[in-house]
């Protein structure tokens, strides 16, 4: 708490040196600056055994989720303490290896809606990222209109039998567990939906990876064929799934817009430096192509506006307690800007920015091409831009349909 921080500067400084000692003992210098590993499907573990060890160390300490309750595997730190942890990590180039949908979407939702038993069972492995989660929401016929989902969970007393198909399941092929929206009542659209946790190793679960236009296969079709799910894996009540599922989407949106790993990767190549090199500069150091220079400046300014807006909304929603509807704005603006940036980078670098594979392109250039393509998904998933605009128009502005 900010007030507590003012009252106990000594305690905070003591904490700072504790953090410094702990990081010195646990963060392997070889991992410095390798935070990009977090964008790999294998997360920190793709940085080798040291990455795994670092994940387990930070996660075990609860510091991957510093402000989450200690009882569930979090760090139990105040915001002031967490800020010190962040500062100290940034200072030495350490990065948070705890990521994935467990942290970004499911954890916060379970903290809010899960039973005590469920939190004790699932949260610790989320905090250490030992268990990977995937999101079973979309179906072939239920995308933007998520509530039309058909995957059915039949009540069998102490368990459900689940049948149906999910699609676009990101990381489905690597996930241990799935948080899914299923239908328990066919007579009601929204109120017939229930939030279930499904062990991906259950008999009857199968996945089929889908190749994306970037050449990678980060998502799957997921099939449920008579999958038995114990009732203890239901979060909330039957029919409460839509409320819980929507809350989770708010967390998802905030994360998509708020500078997740993907964005950091997209930003790795500095726009201005690249432009100076590709286009040259005049005697005053101005980028030689005046039109591109103006557009780069426009991007940089828009980006700054976006970051400031993110800060403002975060502060406001914290003060108000809870995620705000305005997160819709952040998602549409943030995703659009990142896409603009990828496009601008191609325009600046020309054909060199369109390398697909093979000789003549740096790894960073090839990654940028793939990122440009995979980045097109950010305005589609997590509620597309069009759907966000509908939400803004209807819920914030009160512009209702005619009927």
């Amino acid at each position, binding site marked *: 708490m900010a007030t507590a921080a003012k009252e106990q500067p000594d305690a905070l400084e003591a904490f700072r040196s504790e953090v410094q000692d702990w990081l010195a003992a646990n963060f392997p210098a070889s991992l410095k600056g390798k935070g990009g590993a977090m964008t790999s499907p294998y997360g920190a573990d793709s940085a080798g055994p040291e990455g795994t060890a670092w994940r387990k160390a930070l996660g075990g300490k609860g510091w991957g989720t510093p402000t989450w309750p200690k009882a569930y595997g979090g760090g139990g730190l105040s915001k002031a303490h967490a800020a010190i942890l962040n500062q100290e990590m940034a200072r030495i180039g350490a990065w948070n290896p705890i990521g994935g949908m467990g942290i970004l979407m499911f954890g916060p939702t379970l903290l809010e809606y899960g039973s005590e038993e469920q939190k004790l069972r699932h949260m610790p492995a989320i905090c250490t990222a030992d268990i990977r989660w995937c999101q079973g929401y979309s179906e072939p016929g239920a995308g*933007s209109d998520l509530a039309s989902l058909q995957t059915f969970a039949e009540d069998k007393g102490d368990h459900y039998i689940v049948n149906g198909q999910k699609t676009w399941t990101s990381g489905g092929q690597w996930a241990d567990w799935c948080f899914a929206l299923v239908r328990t009542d066919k007579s009601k659209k929204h109120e017939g939906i229930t939030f279930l946790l499904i062990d991906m190793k259950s008999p009857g679960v199968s996945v089929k990876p889908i*190749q*994306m*236009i970037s050449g990678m296969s980060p998502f799957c079709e997921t099939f449920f064929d008579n999958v038995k799910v114990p009732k203890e894996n239901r979060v909330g009540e039957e029919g409460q799934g839509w409320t819980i599922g929507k809350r989770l989407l708010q967390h998802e949106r905030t994360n998509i817009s708020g500078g997740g790993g993907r964005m950091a990767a997209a930003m790795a190549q500095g726009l201005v430096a690249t432009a100076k090199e590709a286009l040259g500069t005049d005697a005053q150091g101005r980028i030689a192509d005046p039109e591109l220079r103006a557009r780069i400046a426009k991007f940089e300014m828009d980006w700054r506006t976006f970051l400031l807006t993110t800060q403002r909304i975060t502060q406001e929603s914290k003060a108000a307690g809870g995620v705000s509807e305005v997160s819709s704005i952040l998602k549409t603006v943030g995703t659009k800007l990142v896409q603009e940036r990828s496009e601008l980078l191609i325009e600046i670098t020309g054909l060199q920015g369109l*390398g697909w594979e093979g000789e003549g392109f740096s790894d960073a250039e090839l990654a940028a091409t793939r990122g440009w*393509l995979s980045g*097109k998904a950010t305005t589609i998933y997590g509620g597309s831009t069009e759907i966000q605009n509908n939400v803004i128009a209807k819920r914030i502005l009160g512009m209702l349909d005619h009927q």
Partner: protein
Amino acid sequence: MAVLSEEQTMLRDMAREWTTNESPVTAFRKFRDLAPACGYDANAFKTMAEMGWAGIVIPEKFGGSDFGWLSLGLVLEETAKTLTASPLASSALAASALVLGSSDAAKATWLPRLASGEVVGTLAIDEGPRHNPAAIATTATKSGDGWTLSGTKAFVHEAHGAALFIVAAQTPDGVGVFAVPADLAGLGLATRKLTDSRSHANVTLANVKVGADAYLGGSDLLDRLLDRARIVTAAEMLGLAEHSFGVTLDYLKQRVQFGQILATFQALQHRMAELFTRIELMRTDVEAALAALDSSTDVPAMASLAKATANDTLHLVSREVIQLHGGIGMTDEYFIAFYIKRARVLENAWGSSTFHRDRYASLAGY
């Protein structure tokens, strides 16, 4: 739609029918997955040549039909719709260098073979990843009767299948344009794989020796050639924009969400109406530029106008068509993203929009 002659209408209809039946998008996917060494769909090009398309801008006395640039543009627009991986445009541009050039020997040697499709030619002008004809550093020095060429050309389209390169190089008297056979000693290729899965390579010329009759002309020829490249590219881009738009329109009329087809949402109707409008404007510029070539009026400004409009329009269209498809548009199994992958390559070839806006202003004296 420009007012077409009867022959042009027939040609366009024939091209439309052929691409629809014989060269659909599935043929492009097959080409992409097979990745043949020549860099293009050889069977498709063979048929295209048999239909006379390779000779559309070549005079009759050299075996062509001399149908003109608007006719060529109509064919390219149609074949682009289904992404046909043919060197038709590159080869026609190489041929036009010979037609416009001063070397009778080069005409006699190459034009009949280009017209029949027996060989493929291509332009090797730019030396970097961005179009910049003012920065040509490849040199041509006199040696005996002929010339010695040295330098590197970047991202030469259809380089793998080309028997003839049209090369721009600095001579002691300014820039010159040369016809360079691909099999000469000292000429080497380095493949550059781009998003469009088509043939691109850097072409290195290490003391490549050509005869005196390889010289085709100077900077004036280069300018005329580049304008043709810009306009022909814009014609291909028109086909990409139109077809990806049409496919998306069909999809929106069939995909149901919220209990209604997507096409009934006004938010999407307006987006599609905007794209339609932009594509109509693009069509105007592209056809006007093609016609300008045929009548030799105001070609430089029309080339910049057409290429800039094509760049901006296709840029927008190629993004929107993915977005409007939703998740399915992000899958490789579906084909809509093939268009953006080709679009960006063409946008960056022969001048970006900033290049052409700057040039348009310069041409007009401001």
